Protein backbone atom coordinates (compact mmCIF):
# COMPACT_ATOMS: atom_id res chain seq x y z
CA UNK A 1 0.00 0.00 0.00
CA UNK A 2 2.74 2.47 1.04
CA UNK A 3 4.93 1.40 -1.90
CA UNK A 4 2.02 1.92 -4.30
CA UNK A 5 1.40 5.38 -2.84
CA UNK A 6 5.09 6.27 -3.17
CA UNK A 7 5.13 4.93 -6.72
CA UNK A 8 2.14 7.03 -7.77
CA UNK A 9 3.46 10.16 -6.02
CA UNK A 10 6.96 9.67 -7.42
CA UNK A 11 5.66 9.11 -10.96
CA UNK A 12 3.51 12.24 -10.69
CA UNK A 13 6.37 14.44 -9.52
CA UNK A 14 8.80 13.01 -12.08
CA UNK A 15 6.30 13.70 -14.84
CA UNK A 16 5.73 17.22 -13.47
CA UNK A 17 9.48 17.88 -13.39
CA UNK A 18 9.90 16.49 -16.91
CA UNK A 19 7.12 18.72 -18.26
CA UNK A 20 8.48 21.77 -16.41
CA UNK A 21 11.95 21.18 -17.83
CA UNK A 22 10.52 20.78 -21.32
CA UNK A 23 8.52 24.01 -20.91
CA UNK A 24 11.56 25.98 -19.70
CA UNK A 25 13.68 24.72 -22.62
CA UNK A 26 10.86 25.50 -25.05
CA UNK A 27 10.51 29.08 -23.75
CA UNK A 28 14.29 29.57 -23.77
CA UNK A 29 14.45 28.33 -27.38
CA UNK A 30 11.62 30.70 -28.34
CA UNK A 31 13.26 33.72 -26.71
CA UNK A 32 16.71 32.91 -28.14
CA UNK A 33 15.21 32.43 -31.61
CA UNK A 34 14.01 36.03 -31.49
CA UNK A 35 17.46 37.41 -30.83
CA UNK A 36 18.86 36.43 -34.23
CA UNK A 37 17.40 37.54 -37.56
CA UNK A 38 15.14 37.02 -39.38
CA UNK A 39 12.50 38.48 -37.07
CA UNK A 40 9.00 38.24 -38.50
CA UNK A 41 7.71 41.74 -37.63
CA UNK A 42 4.63 41.30 -39.81
CA UNK A 43 3.66 38.24 -37.75
CA UNK A 44 4.28 40.11 -34.49
CA UNK A 45 1.95 42.96 -35.52
CA UNK A 46 -0.68 40.49 -36.72
CA UNK A 47 -0.55 38.73 -33.36
CA UNK A 48 -0.73 42.03 -31.47
CA UNK A 49 -3.94 42.69 -33.38
CA UNK A 50 -5.33 39.19 -32.70
CA UNK A 51 -4.23 38.84 -29.08
CA UNK A 52 -4.37 42.46 -27.92
CA UNK A 53 -6.86 44.43 -29.96
CA UNK A 54 -9.45 41.66 -30.33
CA UNK A 55 -9.34 40.96 -26.58
CA UNK A 56 -10.33 44.54 -25.75
CA UNK A 57 -14.13 43.92 -25.58
CA UNK A 58 -13.85 40.95 -23.25
CA UNK A 59 -11.31 42.67 -20.97
CA UNK A 60 -13.28 45.94 -21.02
CA UNK A 61 -16.60 44.30 -20.10
CA UNK A 62 -14.98 42.22 -17.36
CA UNK A 63 -13.31 45.30 -15.90
CA UNK A 64 -16.46 47.44 -16.07
CA UNK A 65 -18.65 44.95 -14.20
CA UNK A 66 -15.89 44.09 -11.73
CA UNK A 67 -15.39 47.80 -10.93
CA UNK A 68 -19.13 48.21 -10.39
CA UNK A 69 -19.44 45.12 -8.19
CA UNK A 70 -16.34 46.15 -6.22
CA UNK A 71 -17.88 49.55 -5.49
CA UNK A 72 -21.06 47.89 -4.17
CA UNK A 73 -19.14 45.41 -2.02
CA UNK A 74 -16.81 48.01 -0.50
CA UNK A 75 -19.68 50.37 0.16
CA UNK A 76 -21.58 47.60 1.96
CA UNK A 77 -18.50 46.49 3.91
CA UNK A 78 -17.35 50.06 4.64
CA UNK A 79 -20.75 51.06 5.99
CA UNK A 80 -20.20 48.68 8.93
CA UNK A 81 -17.56 51.05 10.34
CA UNK A 82 -18.66 54.31 8.68
CA UNK A 83 -16.00 53.90 5.99
CA UNK A 84 -18.14 54.42 2.89
CA UNK A 85 -15.82 57.21 1.74
CA UNK A 86 -13.03 54.74 0.94
CA UNK A 87 -14.99 53.30 -1.99
CA UNK A 88 -13.28 55.32 -4.79
CA UNK A 89 -9.75 54.75 -3.42
CA UNK A 90 -10.22 51.04 -2.80
CA UNK A 91 -11.83 50.48 -6.20
CA UNK A 92 -8.87 52.20 -7.88
CA UNK A 93 -6.18 50.43 -5.84
CA UNK A 94 -7.96 47.08 -6.13
CA UNK A 95 -8.30 47.39 -9.89
CA UNK A 96 -4.75 48.58 -10.53
CA UNK A 97 -2.92 46.22 -8.22
CA UNK A 98 -4.94 43.04 -8.39
CA UNK A 99 -8.24 42.72 -10.20
CA UNK A 100 -7.26 44.45 -13.45
CA UNK A 101 -4.24 42.26 -14.21
CA UNK A 102 -5.55 39.01 -12.70
CA UNK A 103 -9.07 39.05 -14.15
CA UNK A 104 -7.80 40.49 -17.42
CA UNK A 105 -5.15 37.76 -17.51
CA UNK A 106 -7.67 35.01 -16.82
CA UNK A 107 -10.07 36.30 -19.48
CA UNK A 108 -7.28 36.58 -22.07
CA UNK A 109 -6.04 33.12 -21.06
CA UNK A 110 -9.51 31.71 -21.81
CA UNK A 111 -9.73 33.48 -25.14
CA UNK A 112 -6.17 33.42 -26.43
CA UNK A 113 -4.32 30.49 -24.87
CA UNK A 114 -6.83 27.92 -26.11
CA UNK A 115 -6.95 29.53 -29.56
CA UNK A 116 -3.15 29.45 -29.87
CA UNK A 117 -3.00 25.82 -28.70
CA UNK A 118 -5.76 24.76 -31.10
CA UNK A 119 -4.20 26.63 -34.04
CA UNK A 120 -0.67 25.31 -33.51
CA UNK A 121 -1.97 21.84 -32.56
CA UNK A 122 -3.96 21.64 -35.80
CA UNK A 123 -0.92 22.84 -37.74
CA UNK A 124 1.09 20.05 -36.14
CA UNK A 125 -1.50 17.36 -36.84
CA UNK A 126 -1.88 18.42 -40.48
CA UNK A 127 1.92 18.56 -40.96
CA UNK A 128 1.89 22.33 -41.57
CA UNK A 129 4.68 22.74 -39.00
CA UNK A 130 6.79 20.17 -40.86
CA UNK A 131 5.96 22.02 -44.08
CA UNK A 132 7.35 25.23 -42.54
CA UNK A 133 10.60 23.44 -41.72
CA UNK A 134 10.95 22.08 -45.25
CA UNK A 135 10.50 25.63 -46.56
CA UNK A 136 13.55 26.60 -44.47
CA UNK A 137 11.45 28.52 -41.91
CA UNK A 138 12.11 27.80 -38.24
CA UNK A 139 8.63 27.07 -36.80
CA UNK A 140 9.57 28.29 -33.32
CA UNK A 141 10.83 31.60 -34.69
CA UNK A 142 7.86 31.99 -37.00
CA UNK A 143 5.02 30.75 -34.77
CA UNK A 144 6.11 30.96 -31.14
CA UNK A 145 8.28 34.07 -30.81
CA UNK A 146 5.73 36.45 -32.43
CA UNK A 147 2.92 35.14 -30.20
CA UNK A 148 4.94 35.38 -27.00
CA UNK A 149 6.18 38.87 -27.91
CA UNK A 150 2.70 40.04 -28.91
CA UNK A 151 1.06 38.76 -25.72
CA UNK A 152 3.81 40.15 -23.48
CA UNK A 153 3.59 43.58 -25.11
CA UNK A 154 -0.22 43.68 -25.46
CA UNK A 155 -1.20 42.64 -21.96
CA UNK A 156 0.07 45.79 -20.13
CA UNK A 157 -1.85 47.99 -22.61
CA UNK A 158 -4.96 45.83 -22.27
CA UNK A 159 -4.75 45.95 -18.49
CA UNK A 160 -4.17 49.71 -18.54
CA UNK A 161 -7.36 50.19 -20.56
CA UNK A 162 -9.15 47.61 -18.39
CA UNK A 163 -8.12 49.50 -15.24
CA UNK A 164 -9.52 52.75 -16.59
CA UNK A 165 -12.80 51.05 -17.57
CA UNK A 166 -12.99 49.30 -14.18
CA UNK A 167 -12.54 52.59 -12.34
CA UNK A 168 -15.25 54.05 -14.60
CA UNK A 169 -17.51 51.13 -13.65
CA UNK A 170 -16.95 51.93 -10.00
CA UNK A 171 -17.60 55.62 -10.68
CA UNK A 172 -20.79 54.80 -12.58
CA UNK A 173 -22.18 52.70 -9.71
CA UNK A 174 -20.82 55.06 -7.03
CA UNK A 175 -22.41 58.17 -8.51
CA UNK A 176 -25.65 56.74 -9.92
CA UNK A 177 -26.43 54.01 -7.42
CA UNK A 178 -24.66 54.91 -4.17
CA UNK A 179 -25.17 58.67 -4.32
CA UNK A 180 -21.53 59.84 -4.39
CA UNK A 181 -20.77 63.34 -5.60
CA UNK A 182 -19.13 63.08 -9.04
CA UNK A 183 -16.24 65.49 -8.36
CA UNK A 184 -15.38 64.10 -4.93
CA UNK A 185 -15.51 60.53 -6.29
CA UNK A 186 -12.93 61.44 -8.95
CA UNK A 187 -10.74 63.30 -6.44
CA UNK A 188 -10.88 60.42 -3.95
CA UNK A 189 -10.03 57.94 -6.72
CA UNK A 190 -6.65 59.52 -7.33
CA UNK A 191 -5.92 60.79 -3.81
CA UNK A 192 -4.18 57.66 -2.50
CA UNK A 193 -2.94 56.16 -5.76
CA UNK A 194 0.82 55.82 -6.17
CA UNK A 195 2.83 55.15 -9.31
CA UNK A 196 3.81 51.77 -7.81
CA UNK A 197 0.14 50.70 -7.87
CA UNK A 198 0.17 51.18 -11.60
CA UNK A 199 3.63 49.76 -12.39
CA UNK A 200 3.14 46.65 -10.26
CA UNK A 201 -0.06 45.85 -12.16
CA UNK A 202 1.66 46.37 -15.48
CA UNK A 203 4.59 44.13 -14.51
CA UNK A 204 2.07 41.46 -13.58
CA UNK A 205 0.21 41.97 -16.86
CA UNK A 206 3.39 41.53 -18.93
CA UNK A 207 4.26 38.36 -17.01
CA UNK A 208 0.75 36.97 -17.50
CA UNK A 209 0.96 37.72 -21.22
CA UNK A 210 4.19 35.71 -21.43
CA UNK A 211 2.58 32.84 -19.48
CA UNK A 212 -0.58 32.80 -21.64
CA UNK A 213 1.23 32.67 -24.99
CA UNK A 214 3.94 30.26 -23.79
CA UNK A 215 1.41 27.77 -22.46
CA UNK A 216 -0.71 28.04 -25.61
CA UNK A 217 2.27 27.50 -27.91
CA UNK A 218 3.77 24.74 -25.73
CA UNK A 219 0.49 22.79 -25.52
CA UNK A 220 -0.07 23.15 -29.27
CA UNK A 221 3.47 22.13 -30.19
CA UNK A 222 3.36 19.00 -28.05
CA UNK A 223 -0.26 18.05 -28.72
CA UNK A 224 -0.83 14.42 -29.59
CA UNK A 225 -2.26 13.39 -32.95
CA UNK A 226 -5.91 13.71 -33.89
CA UNK A 227 -8.86 15.89 -32.97
CA UNK A 228 -8.84 14.60 -29.40
CA UNK A 229 -5.19 15.56 -29.00
CA UNK A 230 -5.83 19.10 -30.23
CA UNK A 231 -8.87 19.43 -27.94
CA UNK A 232 -6.82 18.24 -24.99
CA UNK A 233 -4.06 20.70 -25.88
CA UNK A 234 -6.55 23.59 -25.85
CA UNK A 235 -7.93 22.55 -22.46
CA UNK A 236 -4.44 22.04 -21.02
CA UNK A 237 -3.39 25.47 -22.26
CA UNK A 238 -6.29 27.25 -20.52
CA UNK A 239 -6.07 25.30 -17.26
CA UNK A 240 -2.30 25.50 -16.94
CA UNK A 241 -2.05 29.16 -17.92
CA UNK A 242 -4.84 30.06 -15.45
CA UNK A 243 -3.11 28.21 -12.62
CA UNK A 244 0.25 29.74 -13.53
CA UNK A 245 -1.33 33.22 -13.62
CA UNK A 246 -2.71 32.78 -10.10
CA UNK A 247 0.53 31.29 -8.77
CA UNK A 248 2.76 33.91 -10.39
CA UNK A 249 0.38 36.63 -9.17
CA UNK A 250 1.03 35.55 -5.60
CA UNK A 251 4.80 35.38 -6.15
CA UNK A 252 4.88 38.78 -7.85
CA UNK A 253 2.77 40.32 -5.08
CA UNK A 254 5.25 38.97 -2.54
CA UNK A 255 8.15 40.42 -4.52
CA UNK A 256 6.61 43.78 -5.39
CA UNK A 257 4.96 44.62 -2.07
CA UNK A 258 7.47 43.04 0.34
CA UNK A 259 7.74 46.13 2.54
Amino acid at each position, binding site marked *: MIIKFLLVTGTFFLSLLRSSGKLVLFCARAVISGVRPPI*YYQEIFLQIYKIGYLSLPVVGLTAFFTGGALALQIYDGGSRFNGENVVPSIVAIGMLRELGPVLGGLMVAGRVSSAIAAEIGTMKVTEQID*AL*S*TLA*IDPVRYLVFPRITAATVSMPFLVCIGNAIGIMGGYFVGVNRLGFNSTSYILNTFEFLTIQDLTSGLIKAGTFGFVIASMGCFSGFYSSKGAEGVGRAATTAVVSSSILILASNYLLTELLFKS
Partner: protein
Amino acid sequence: MKSSLINIDKLSLSFGNKRVLKDLDLQVGKGESLVIIGGSGEGKSVLLKCILGLLHQDSGSINFMGAKIIGENKQQFLSQFGMLFQGAALFDSMPVWENISFRYKYSKMFTKTERKDLAKEKLALVGLSENTADLFPAELSGGMQKRVGIARAIASNPKILFFDEPTSGLDPRMAHNINKLLQDIIIKLSATTVTITHDVSSVKALADKVALLESGSIAWQGKTNEFNSTDHPNVSQFKNPSSF
Protein backbone atom coordinates in the same frame (compact mmCIF):
# COMPACT_ATOMS: atom_id res chain seq x y z
CA MET B 1 26.02 4.23 -62.08
CA LYS B 2 24.83 7.80 -61.42
CA SER B 3 26.78 9.78 -58.82
CA SER B 4 25.17 9.58 -55.40
CA LEU B 5 23.25 12.69 -54.31
CA ILE B 6 21.87 11.30 -51.06
CA ASN B 7 23.76 8.70 -49.14
CA ILE B 8 22.11 7.02 -46.15
CA ASP B 9 24.37 4.86 -44.04
CA LYS B 10 23.32 2.53 -41.21
CA LEU B 11 20.36 4.70 -40.20
CA SER B 12 18.56 3.64 -37.03
CA LEU B 13 15.73 5.26 -35.13
CA SER B 14 13.51 4.05 -32.29
CA PHE B 15 10.39 5.50 -30.69
CA GLY B 16 10.51 4.22 -27.12
CA ASN B 17 10.92 0.46 -27.37
CA LYS B 18 9.83 0.33 -31.00
CA ARG B 19 12.71 0.26 -33.46
CA VAL B 20 11.37 1.88 -36.62
CA LEU B 21 14.52 2.07 -38.75
CA LYS B 22 17.25 -0.57 -38.43
CA ASP B 23 20.70 0.01 -39.94
CA LEU B 24 19.14 1.24 -43.15
CA ASP B 25 21.44 1.81 -46.14
CA LEU B 26 20.24 3.61 -49.26
CA GLN B 27 21.68 5.72 -52.06
CA VAL B 28 19.87 8.07 -54.38
CA GLY B 29 21.72 8.94 -57.56
CA LYS B 30 21.68 12.37 -59.19
CA GLY B 31 18.71 12.69 -61.56
CA GLU B 32 17.32 9.39 -60.32
CA SER B 33 13.67 8.79 -59.49
CA LEU B 34 13.56 6.49 -56.50
CA VAL B 35 10.26 5.08 -55.27
CA ILE B 36 10.20 3.57 -51.79
CA ILE B 37 7.37 1.12 -51.28
CA GLY B 38 6.21 -0.71 -48.21
CA GLY B 39 3.19 -1.45 -46.09
CA SER B 40 1.65 0.89 -43.55
CA GLY B 41 3.76 1.41 -40.43
CA GLU B 42 6.98 0.10 -42.00
CA GLY B 43 8.78 3.44 -41.48
CA LYS B 44 8.53 5.03 -44.94
CA SER B 45 7.40 8.48 -43.77
CA VAL B 46 9.82 8.32 -40.84
CA LEU B 47 12.67 7.73 -43.29
CA LEU B 48 11.59 10.72 -45.35
CA LYS B 49 11.37 12.92 -42.24
CA CYS B 50 14.87 11.81 -41.23
CA ILE B 51 16.25 12.80 -44.66
CA LEU B 52 14.56 16.21 -44.36
CA GLY B 53 15.91 16.72 -40.84
CA LEU B 54 12.43 16.75 -39.28
CA LEU B 55 13.35 13.74 -37.15
CA HIS B 56 16.79 13.01 -35.73
CA GLN B 57 18.17 9.52 -36.08
CA ASP B 58 19.60 7.62 -33.11
CA SER B 59 22.58 6.47 -35.16
CA GLY B 60 23.87 6.37 -38.70
CA SER B 61 24.28 9.24 -41.12
CA ILE B 62 22.56 11.00 -43.99
CA ASN B 63 24.74 12.88 -46.45
CA PHE B 64 23.56 15.22 -49.18
CA MET B 65 26.23 15.79 -51.82
CA GLY B 66 28.80 14.52 -49.35
CA ALA B 67 27.85 16.83 -46.45
CA LYS B 68 25.73 16.10 -43.38
CA ILE B 69 22.28 17.75 -43.24
CA ILE B 70 22.67 19.30 -39.78
CA GLY B 71 23.22 22.66 -38.05
CA GLU B 72 23.90 25.64 -40.30
CA ASN B 73 24.01 23.37 -43.35
CA LYS B 74 20.40 22.37 -42.81
CA GLN B 75 18.79 25.64 -43.92
CA GLN B 76 21.05 25.78 -46.97
CA PHE B 77 20.14 22.23 -47.97
CA LEU B 78 16.44 22.72 -47.32
CA SER B 79 16.40 25.53 -49.87
CA GLN B 80 17.33 22.89 -52.47
CA PHE B 81 14.54 20.52 -51.42
CA GLY B 82 10.87 20.49 -52.35
CA MET B 83 8.37 18.37 -50.46
CA LEU B 84 4.82 17.26 -51.17
CA PHE B 85 3.13 16.08 -47.98
CA GLN B 86 0.59 13.28 -47.82
CA GLY B 87 -2.28 15.63 -46.97
CA ALA B 88 -0.69 18.52 -48.93
CA ALA B 89 -0.13 20.42 -45.61
CA LEU B 90 -1.19 23.76 -47.08
CA PHE B 91 -1.27 26.73 -44.71
CA ASP B 92 -4.99 27.22 -44.26
CA SER B 93 -4.71 30.85 -43.17
CA MET B 94 -3.20 31.89 -46.50
CA PRO B 95 -4.54 31.99 -50.05
CA VAL B 96 -3.18 29.56 -52.61
CA TRP B 97 -0.74 32.03 -54.17
CA GLU B 98 0.82 32.83 -50.81
CA ASN B 99 1.13 29.11 -50.03
CA ILE B 100 3.02 28.53 -53.25
CA SER B 101 5.39 31.47 -52.89
CA PHE B 102 5.68 31.25 -49.10
CA ARG B 103 9.39 30.44 -49.24
CA TYR B 104 9.97 33.97 -50.57
CA LYS B 105 7.46 35.82 -48.37
CA TYR B 106 10.14 37.22 -46.09
CA SER B 107 12.87 37.42 -48.69
CA LYS B 108 13.86 40.70 -50.30
CA MET B 109 14.35 38.89 -53.61
CA PHE B 110 10.70 39.20 -54.65
CA THR B 111 8.00 41.86 -54.41
CA LYS B 112 4.44 40.84 -53.62
CA THR B 113 3.45 41.12 -57.29
CA GLU B 114 6.41 39.01 -58.35
CA ARG B 115 5.49 36.38 -55.79
CA LYS B 116 1.94 36.28 -57.07
CA ASP B 117 3.19 35.98 -60.65
CA LEU B 118 5.50 33.16 -59.63
CA ALA B 119 2.57 31.37 -57.97
CA LYS B 120 0.42 31.75 -61.10
CA GLU B 121 3.23 30.40 -63.25
CA LYS B 122 3.54 27.33 -61.03
CA LEU B 123 -0.24 26.91 -60.93
CA ALA B 124 -0.27 26.75 -64.73
CA LEU B 125 2.47 24.12 -64.54
CA VAL B 126 0.30 21.89 -62.35
CA GLY B 127 -2.78 22.43 -64.51
CA LEU B 128 -4.70 24.90 -62.35
CA SER B 129 -6.17 28.18 -63.56
CA GLU B 130 -5.07 31.64 -62.40
CA ASN B 131 -8.42 32.04 -60.61
CA THR B 132 -7.31 29.42 -58.09
CA ALA B 133 -4.58 31.77 -56.81
CA ASP B 134 -6.89 33.78 -54.56
CA LEU B 135 -8.81 30.82 -53.12
CA PHE B 136 -8.08 29.41 -49.68
CA PRO B 137 -7.08 25.74 -49.22
CA ALA B 138 -10.45 24.94 -47.58
CA GLU B 139 -12.15 25.93 -50.84
CA LEU B 140 -10.20 23.35 -52.88
CA SER B 141 -10.93 19.68 -53.59
CA GLY B 142 -8.44 16.99 -52.47
CA GLY B 143 -6.96 16.72 -55.97
CA MET B 144 -6.57 20.49 -56.27
CA GLN B 145 -4.89 20.62 -52.86
CA LYS B 146 -2.37 18.01 -54.03
CA ARG B 147 -1.69 20.07 -57.15
CA VAL B 148 -1.16 23.22 -55.06
CA GLY B 149 1.12 21.18 -52.79
CA ILE B 150 3.12 20.14 -55.88
CA ALA B 151 3.24 23.77 -57.07
CA ARG B 152 4.61 24.83 -53.67
CA ALA B 153 7.19 22.02 -53.77
CA ILE B 154 8.50 23.10 -57.17
CA ALA B 155 8.26 26.87 -56.56
CA SER B 156 12.00 27.24 -55.95
CA ASN B 157 13.04 24.85 -58.75
CA PRO B 158 14.57 22.47 -56.19
CA LYS B 159 17.32 19.99 -56.99
CA ILE B 160 15.51 17.21 -55.21
CA LEU B 161 11.81 16.56 -54.74
CA PHE B 162 10.18 14.39 -52.10
CA PHE B 163 6.65 13.06 -52.54
CA ASP B 164 4.94 11.44 -49.57
CA GLU B 165 2.04 9.26 -50.76
CA PRO B 166 1.17 11.56 -53.69
CA THR B 167 -1.97 9.62 -54.64
CA SER B 168 -3.36 8.72 -51.23
CA GLY B 169 -7.00 9.67 -50.69
CA LEU B 170 -7.64 10.25 -54.41
CA ASP B 171 -9.96 8.37 -56.74
CA PRO B 172 -8.19 6.19 -59.39
CA ARG B 173 -8.74 8.73 -62.18
CA MET B 174 -7.36 11.62 -60.12
CA ALA B 175 -4.50 9.38 -58.90
CA HIS B 176 -3.63 8.68 -62.54
CA ASN B 177 -3.69 12.41 -63.34
CA ILE B 178 -1.41 13.22 -60.40
CA ASN B 179 1.04 10.47 -61.40
CA LYS B 180 1.07 11.85 -64.95
CA LEU B 181 1.61 15.37 -63.64
CA LEU B 182 4.52 14.26 -61.45
CA GLN B 183 6.01 12.36 -64.37
CA ASP B 184 5.91 15.54 -66.51
CA ILE B 185 7.36 17.68 -63.73
CA ILE B 186 10.23 15.26 -63.10
CA ILE B 187 11.12 15.39 -66.79
CA LYS B 188 10.67 19.18 -67.04
CA LEU B 189 12.78 20.00 -63.97
CA SER B 190 15.27 17.14 -64.42
CA ALA B 191 15.07 16.83 -60.66
CA THR B 192 16.08 13.93 -58.46
CA THR B 193 12.99 12.54 -56.73
CA VAL B 194 12.23 10.32 -53.79
CA THR B 195 8.64 9.10 -53.66
CA ILE B 196 7.03 7.14 -50.89
CA THR B 197 3.96 5.14 -51.80
CA HIS B 198 2.09 1.90 -51.51
CA ASP B 199 0.38 2.52 -54.84
CA VAL B 200 1.83 0.25 -57.55
CA SER B 201 0.57 2.58 -60.29
CA SER B 202 2.80 5.35 -58.86
CA VAL B 203 5.76 2.95 -59.00
CA LYS B 204 5.10 2.23 -62.68
CA ALA B 205 4.63 5.90 -63.53
CA LEU B 206 7.50 7.46 -61.59
CA ALA B 207 10.26 4.99 -60.74
CA ASP B 208 13.72 4.52 -62.21
CA LYS B 209 14.60 2.56 -59.12
CA VAL B 210 12.43 0.86 -56.50
CA ALA B 211 13.24 0.01 -52.89
CA LEU B 212 11.07 -2.11 -50.64
CA LEU B 213 11.11 -1.03 -47.00
CA GLU B 214 10.20 -3.73 -44.55
CA SER B 215 10.58 -3.84 -40.79
CA GLY B 216 12.74 -0.73 -40.87
CA SER B 217 15.29 -1.79 -43.45
CA ILE B 218 15.54 -2.18 -47.21
CA ALA B 219 14.39 -5.71 -48.02
CA TRP B 220 14.86 -5.39 -51.79
CA GLN B 221 15.96 -2.75 -54.30
CA GLY B 222 16.42 -2.68 -58.05
CA LYS B 223 15.60 -0.97 -61.33
CA THR B 224 11.99 -0.72 -62.49
CA ASN B 225 12.37 -3.55 -65.00
CA GLU B 226 13.82 -5.73 -62.23
CA PHE B 227 10.84 -4.78 -60.04
CA ASN B 228 8.50 -5.95 -62.78
CA SER B 229 10.28 -9.25 -63.30
CA THR B 230 11.53 -10.19 -59.82
CA ASP B 231 10.05 -13.15 -58.00
CA HIS B 232 11.21 -11.86 -54.60
CA PRO B 233 8.31 -13.01 -52.38
CA ASN B 234 7.79 -9.69 -50.59
CA VAL B 235 7.85 -7.66 -53.81
CA SER B 236 5.52 -10.16 -55.50
CA GLN B 237 3.18 -9.93 -52.55
CA PHE B 238 3.21 -6.16 -52.92
CA LYS B 239 2.50 -6.33 -56.65
CA ASN B 240 -0.27 -8.95 -56.41
CA PRO B 241 -1.66 -8.92 -52.88
CA SER B 242 -4.74 -10.96 -53.91
CA SER B 243 -2.59 -13.95 -54.93
CA PHE B 244 -1.28 -14.36 -51.36
